[in-house]
Every structure is written in C-alpha cells, then in structure tokens.
C-alpha cells in the first residue's frame, strides 16, 4: 500500500474520510485497548498510589497465590460445573424444542408458541431472578405447591437454601429464559434440509421418529457442532449475574464464580492485582477450551471454526 506511487495523492483525496475516522480510532483505543495495559497489574503488587511504573514487580506470585487459595479454587470448580451444566442443557433443549416445533402441525399454535418462547429472552436478569424466587419460594412457590399436589414431597423444599440444588436452578433458569431464542438458529437449519428426503423416507415407510433420527438430526449436525465449539469457549463466561443475584450465605460455597471473585476480592477489597490475575486465568482457559474443541472436531473430520 505504502509503495503505491499515488499513495500521497490518494490520501489527499480522502481527507474527509480520514478526518471522520479519527474519532473512531481514538475511541476504540481508549475504551478497548488502553484497559489491556491493565494486565500488567497481574504481574505486579499493584498499589494505586504508586501506579504501574513504581509498583513492585512480582512475576507469577499472584497466580501462585490464586492456585493455593481455597476460595478461588472453589470458584473455579463452581464456574466449570455450572458452565458444563449450561453447555449440556443449552445444547440439548433448543435442539429438541426446534425439532418438535418444526414437527408441530397446527400453524397458528406454532406462531403462538414461537412468540411466547422468545419473550423471556428480552426480560432482564433481575426479573428472571424475581421469577425464580417466586416459583421456588417456600411459602407460596408454584413448584412446591405442584410437587405437594401430586404427592412427590410432603413438605415444601427450601430450594435456594440447599447447595445441592443451586447449579441446577441456575441451569434451568437459563433454559427458561433462552431455550426459545437459542432454537431459532436450529429452526433455520431445519428449514434448509431438502424436503425430498422426508418424502422419500416416508414412501419407504419411515415413521416420524425415524425421519427425525435419520434426516433431521444428521442435517443439523454441522450446525450443532459449530455452535458447540463456540459454546465450549464460553463455558467459563456463563457464571455471573444469576449466581450473584440468587446466591446467599447458605449456598455461598456453590454459588461463587470466578467473576464474582474478581468483583468481591478485586474491586470490593481493592486487591486489583489478584483480581486481574483471576481474569487472565479465565481468558486463558477459555482460549485453550476453544482450541481443544476445534481440534477434536477437525480430528473427527467435521466442520470447524478455523
């Protein structure tokens, strides 16, 4: 580009475009790239009054501290477990829902169910939390009433006070909110499957289930794999808002995630260096996870991200 003899002339001709683009360069540098320098803090014993230049350099000490820290390791475990639950439920539920919806023959009903299923996606996390509180409440909670009504339990369960339920509550709350929305991409993929295949199969005597199993699912395979790879990279990114809002002292040991640790320990207590180190650890694990998922997809001879 710079070897182009007319480069100077071209540059002059687009003075207006260059001028217009300057604020955008400045903006992105300040808001997105300057914070990256903050990663230096992870290798320092950062003191706000000393700044980056004068704070003591400590190498990997902050990371060593984290790995020996019981609280942090609990956070890592919780984040991973909830991430995996979210990944599994978040893959299976939308696929099943999309397939069933595409097989739903009653057209008006289909539109209605679609409209209803997307709605929770647009509600805030705070509202979701309120609904979870309501549904699981001890006194008048819908779930306890339902379970007692059909005789599964004889006294109400304190859902949010028992650590063993917490991960699943977060998982299913996320599903309530996002199943409909996540199914959109699978519905689009089902639409692009050739209808002749279904016709041929039904002439050969294949029933509904067999057609789903032998045509729809194989047709969805590339979509499922790509989304799975992308979601594997996000496994650690699922844990923050719901856990923060739903968590209480009784379930603290299972509700704390890496992000909450960064917030409480880093910003709350002013341990910036430790907080940044925890954040970097999370990003590193995410990158490694995407890499592993992508490589294994390639090894199986499937489509991959890159």
């Amino acid at each position, binding site marked *: 580009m710079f070897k182009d003899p007319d480069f100077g002339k071209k540059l002059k001709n687009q003075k207006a475009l260059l001028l217009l683009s300057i604020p955008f360069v400045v903006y992105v540098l300040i*808001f997105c790239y300057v914070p*990256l320098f903050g990663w230096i803090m992870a290798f320092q014993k950062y003191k706000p009054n000393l700044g980056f230049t004068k704070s003591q350099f400590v190498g990997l000490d902050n990371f060593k501290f984290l790995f020996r820290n019981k609280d942090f390791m609990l956070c890592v475990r919780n984040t991973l477990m909830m991430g995996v639950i979210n990944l599994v439920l978040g893959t299976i539920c939308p696929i099943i829902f999309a397939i069933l919806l595409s*097989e739903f023959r009653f057209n008006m009903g*289909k539109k209605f169910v679609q409209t209803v299923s997307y*709605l929770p996606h647009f509600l*805030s996390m705070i*509202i979701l939390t309120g609904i979870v509180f309501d549904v699981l409440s001890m006194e008048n909670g819908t779930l306890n009433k339902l379970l007692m009504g059909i005789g599964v339990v004889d006294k109400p369960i304190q859902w949010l006070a028992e650590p063993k339920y917490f991960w699943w509550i977060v998982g299913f709350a996320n599903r309530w909110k996002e199943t409909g929305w996540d199914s959109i991409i699978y519905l689009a993929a089902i639409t692009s499957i050739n209808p002749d295949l279904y016709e041929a199969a039904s002439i050969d005597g294949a029933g509904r289930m067999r057609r789903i199993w032998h045509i729809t699912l194989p047709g969805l395979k590339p*979509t499922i794999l790509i*989304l799975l790879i992308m979601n594997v990279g996000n496994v650690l990114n699922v844990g923050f808002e719901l856990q923060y809002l739903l968590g209480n002292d009784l379930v603290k040991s299972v509700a704390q995630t890496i992000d909450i640790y960064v917030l409480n320990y880093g910003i709350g207590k002013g341990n910036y260096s430790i907080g940044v180190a925890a954040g970097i650890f999370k990003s590193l694990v995410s990158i490694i996870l995407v890499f592993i998922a992508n490589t294994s997809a390639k090894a199986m001879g499937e489509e991959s991200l890159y």
Partner: protein
Amino acid sequence: MAELTKKIVSTPNAPITQAEKPKRDAKDIGSKTKHSIVSRRTKGDNIFDAFNTVFMLVFSIVILYPLLNMVAVSFNDGLDALKGGITLVPRVFTLKNYQHVLSQQNMLTAAKVSVLRTVIGTLSATLVTSLLAYILSRKEFLFKKQLSLLYVVTMYVSGGLIPIFLVYKALGMTNSFMVYILPGMVPAFSMLVLRTYMNGLPDSLAESAMMDGAGHLTIFIRIIFPLCMPVVATVALFTAVGQWNSWFDAMLYNRMNSDLTTLQYELMQILNSITSSKQQTAETMKNASATVTPTSVRAAATVVTALPIVILYPFLQRYFVAGLTIGGVKE
C-alpha cells in the same frame, strides 16, 4: 460473523445438486411434514402429534404462568397475597401497590434515568455505529481493513472488569450519566451487520451524489442512513433492550449517586431486601396501614419494569425477522 452465520445455517445435504434444489423460504417449514402426513397417517403419527401438542401446551404454560402470576399479585392486596393461593386473577383487587411504587421518589428518578439512557444511548449508538459502518464501506478508503480489524478484535479481547473499571474511573466516568452511554457506543457486531448491509447498496448512489458535490456526511445522512432503515431498526431495538435491562453498570459505577439510579437497579434493591425474611416482617409491620408488602410492591415494580419490553416486543419480533433476511438486498 456474517459468513459464520451462513456457514452455520447452510446444511449440506447429500446427493442433491444445486440445480435440482427447489427454492424454499421460511414459509415452507410446515409443508414438508404436511405433505407426508397427507400421504400416510399412521398410529405412530397420531401419538407423536398428541404428545407434541401436549408438550407445546406445557411449554407455553411454563413460560407464561410465572409472568401472569406476577401481574395478578401486583394487582392484589399485599397482606391478602401473603396467604397465598393467587394464580391468574387477583383475589382482592387494589391499585395500592402501583400507587406505592409510583409515589417513591427513587423509583421516579430511576424511571427517568432508565428512559433517558435508553433513548440517548440507543440514538447515539445507532447513529455513530452507522457512521463508522459507512466509513468502512467506502471502497476507496485506504485504511478500511486496519480500522475494521481494530474493532473486530474488541469482540474477542477485553481488558476485563478491573482494568476497565480503573480506566473509566480515571476518565471521570464514575458517578456520571456518561458511563451508561459511552462504553457501548460502537458495538463491533452491530458495525459488521450495518457494514454488510451498506456494502450491498449500489455504489452509484453515493457516486452520483458525490458528482453533485455532496460531502461524505451529507451522503451518509441524506442517502445511505435512510436506506439502511430496516437493519438500523434491528440494531436500534437490540441496543434499546440492552440499555433498558442493564443494571450492573449502575451498581458498579453509580451506586453512590441516587440521582443516577436505574429501574433495574432499584428492582434489584427491592429483591435484595426481600430475601432476608426478617426484614420482610419488619417492613410489613411498618406498612401495615397501607396493606402493601415488599412482595406485592416488588410484583408491581417488576410489571412496571417489564412493561416497555412487553409492549415493544411485537415490533421487536418483526424487526428481528427483518434482520435475519438482511442479505436479500443486493444491487
């Protein structure tokens, strides 16, 4: 990202060549099943359909019931609601919960700030992001690749909570309204969607205007931006929903300033006050004469907070579909 979406959606199906492939669109989703159903309906099909109908019914109830129940509680007398048993209709109808919510100064401030941040945030982000997309869609622009890359990278790499917090603090954005507007001003993904759309517009439009002596800003505002309305609407609606629903920035940066509180943050405060049951009884006692309880007040506050979204939602759905078919407009 656009290519990625294409990659995800296109599902290669074995032995059919492009020429034979019949043209289909979203309307045809049902037709394939309809056809086979006409040709042969087995007992298995009937069982499947019955099961499927029941499933869809249960699914809809699971989504709608908690929301409708919340509405019913919000219109019900607070003390009466504590007895339980309210399902879809209020037992003792009252508007006191709403009166209570709407008479609180902090709720009114919060509503004002929420509306302001949604309107200003959405308008500015949409206009500014479109301008960037316009610059990057100019084929003659020498640095379009470099500038695009600078923004695309931000989709994958982030400084993280603490560095960002410190930078915003250094910029004086704590305790300020700007922290709601500036950080999300130019979302890279929206920029890509807009740029893809603008690349699809005929070059001749801008060229002929240029001949007539129009500058880039004029061309952008008078010609290109109005032509992008379908996709601009989609981007704007998603930005608006994001603005309306966000609460974390209010908590992290503006907790100390009650003039900058938002509806979502106030709702979270109400939620937190209820979780400790001791406070619940204390509050109830205090409000005994007014017969509102934290639970009923929260229901009313939730309905107030969710209302704009539910009203906007039908439009949202329409524009979302418009957003999905963006690729259809070509020269």
